[in-house]
């Protein structure tokens, strides 16, 4: 039995290995192989765009944004496929059956997309078509490239700020520094007779919705990486400053009380969000919160401001965390030229961007679209636009292990919050080691 089985299996493997090797190598035209001429010179084609949006109004917004492109290039048929996640894109590219254009909600994979060549480098066509990358704010330029390759373009962005409940603020102005934040957080907190928290001034826990360590990091300007990609977390004193400040506030609340309060809170994306229902006075959140409040908590009287910053770093004030949706052309796309025209249109055409932004309530990514009079905005949304354009704003640098590194740090911080860490320096050094080991494994 064993003897008969072995050759059979071996034959099977050989055949299949052969199949695997040839999959996806039929040469698809490469981007920039042919200079593109006038719009009308582009041959007729059908291109497929995969995106992650799935709710009806989101899908419709995307259709509307593409409508302008269809008018400009009537010979190109655009087929939109909704609700596609990164895994699926990777797999399709790997199998040699990618869409012409793909978009992702997360910037986490940009480094991998560029490094592996999974998405095509856009630099040649950008140069060829004379697209001015300068229309993008610097921070956005940064998170859409890796080691000199620009393999994706930004589609829309998220900008984070401080949301405050005006009624609960008791007439106070939003805090600008960490010490003001601490003072206000304590003052605005309401407890019952047993010391249980009823209203929290500010949640210092990184497990509270958008208070992740990378979002809080903008308050102290914490640096993630050294130029060679190794971890800078242990060596940048800013992180220690942040964690020490955070722990002090946690201890003031009492870790147990804080956890009990946190676990009793409503879901982040539901109408029960604690900021909506007045259970927290101040919270860090993305610009989308405006749209959610308009939908779920119309009567909430709130304001927005940039996040407070370390007392000794006033130059950071005005900035905040930034991230965004990206879009690019996968390797092996069948119509890269038409695909590039679509990417170019979606990411640089002011009308298209404004249409999308107005429908989805995300920040548009070019300077022209930010300034467009057609962009719907109020004072609260304006804060997000200002944060987005601020030079001190920060996004997670592209790194091949971006998610892994965030998790490693986040996991340590949770331990730190609980008081299980006695030596902060040693703990941060351990985080460095975890990140660096992984970098070595991935061959960064």
């Amino acid at each position: 039995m064993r003897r008969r089985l072995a050759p059979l299996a071996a034959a099977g493997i050989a055949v299949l290995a052969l199949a695997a090797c040839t999959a996806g190598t039929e040469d698809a035209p490469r981007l920039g192989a042919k200079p593109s001429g006038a719009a009308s010179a582009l041959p007729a084609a059908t291109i497929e765009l995969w995106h992650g949006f799935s709710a009806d109004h989101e899908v419709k917004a995307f259709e509307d944004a593409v409508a302008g492109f269809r008018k400009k290039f009537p010979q190109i048929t655009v087929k939109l496929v909704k609700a596609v996640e990164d895994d699926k894109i990777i797999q399709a590219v790997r199998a040699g059956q990618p869409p012409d254009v793909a978009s992702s909600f997360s910037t986490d994979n940009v480094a991998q997309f560029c490094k592996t060549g999974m998405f095509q480098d856009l630099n040649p066509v950008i140069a060829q078509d004379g697209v001015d990358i300068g229309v993008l704010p610097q921070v956005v330029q940064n998170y859409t490239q890796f080691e000199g390759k620009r393999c994706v373009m930004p589609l829309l962005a998220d900008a984070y700020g401080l949301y405050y409940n005006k009624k609960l603020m008791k007439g106070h102005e939003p805090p600008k520094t960490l010490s003001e934040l601490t003072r206000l957080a304590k003052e605005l907190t309401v407890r019952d007779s047993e010391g249980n928290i009823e209203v929290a001034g500010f949640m210092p826990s990184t497990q509270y919705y958008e208070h992740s360590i990378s979002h809080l990091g903008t308050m102290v300007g914490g640096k993630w990486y050294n130029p060679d990609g190794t971890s800078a977390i242990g060596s940048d004193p800013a992180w220690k400053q942040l964690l020490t400040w955070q722990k002090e506030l946690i201890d003031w609340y009492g870790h147990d009380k804080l956890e009990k309060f946190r676990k009793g809170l409503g879901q982040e994306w539901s109408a029960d969000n604690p900021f909506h229902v007045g259970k927290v006075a101040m919270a860090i959140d993305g610009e989308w919160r405006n749209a959610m409040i308009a939908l779920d908590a119309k009567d909430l009287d709130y304001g927005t401001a940039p996040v407070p910053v370390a007392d000794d770093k006033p130059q950071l004030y005005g900035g905040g965390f930034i991230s965004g949706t990206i879009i690019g052309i996968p390797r092996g796309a069948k119509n890269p030229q038409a695909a590039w025209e679509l990417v170019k249109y979606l990411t640089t055409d002011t009308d298209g961007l404004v249409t999308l932004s107005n429908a989805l309530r995300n920040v548009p990514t070019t300077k022209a679209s930010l300034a467009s009079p057609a962009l719907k905005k109020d004072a609260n949304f304006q804060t997000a636009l200002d944060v987005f354009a601020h030079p001190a704003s920060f996004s997670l640098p592209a790194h091949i292990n971006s998610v892994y590194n965030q998790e490693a740090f986040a996991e340590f911080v949770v331990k730190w919050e609980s008081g299980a860490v006695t030596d902060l320096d040693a703990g941060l050094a351990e985080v460095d080691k975890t990140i660096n080991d992984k970098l070595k494994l991935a061959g960064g």
Partner: protein
Amino acid sequence: MAITVPPGGAPRAARPRGEGRKALLWASPWLIGFGLFFAYPLAATVYFSFHRYDLFSLEFIGLDNYRHLLGDDRAHTAMRNTLWLVAFMVPAQTVFALGVAQLLTRLKAGAGFFRTVFYLPSLVPMVAGTVAFVFILNPATGPVNQALALLGVTGPDWFGDPAWAKPGLTLLAMWGAGNTVVIFLAALLDVPRHLYEAAAIDGAGAWRQFRDITLPTISPVIMFSAVTGVIYALQYFTQAMVAARVASGVTDSPGSSFVPGYPEGATLTLPQWLFHQGFRDFTMGYACVLALVMFAASTLLTLVLLRRFSAFTADGEGS
């Protein structure tokens, strides 16, 4: 592997030889499947485990992936959790399913209704079922802890407490044990009634009947349930991930990725870690090492179980 040693010791030599060829013919479609869906992926996994493989390019790195496993704390946590599930969830689920099946054989009124109700949870899509479970066990608002409070017991924090998250998952597994219940039920109904009658005449009580007649007769099925249970526990993925995600309240948004294993790594299982390493961190070579660890653990545990059951497994050969 002495699993099929006939209890009676039937004279093998008396049988005509040559059933090997026949068996090969009968099993030939499966043999192709074995090559295609087992041998080939296994070979590929072993091959990748010696490479740096980001799903696009391959680079030989010898034993580096294996070496990395030694220093990967979270992989160790994941292994411990997975072993916990094998050691506690599988027996709990098996014993519980056997108990329910036994109960079902003795129900007269509404038997069809009860059989359907106990099977129902297996029909609930995993994600929806897990979400429902987490909400029902919510420490503040869930009915379980409210009911416990009425009895004067302070319920645990279930999926929010590292000590209770895995027992919570075990309850979920027991709830969804319908398949195993049905298999046991079919086996129990198959036990020849005259054996019980004979035993009753000999004065054997219910427990002795169960131990001396029921258990040995259905032991091939118990073995099946134990082996598939162990394999299933080693591959435990979706429920742990969904429960952790829902309980933590964190949804992926830029810059705040969900850390698997909430709370404090208590629900991080090996397949979850493997999935993350392979598809989120693009270190497929290392993920393959983890896969081989899982495969080795499955093989080892299965062999132990097969050996254990060989003592009283009838395979019909001897009868």
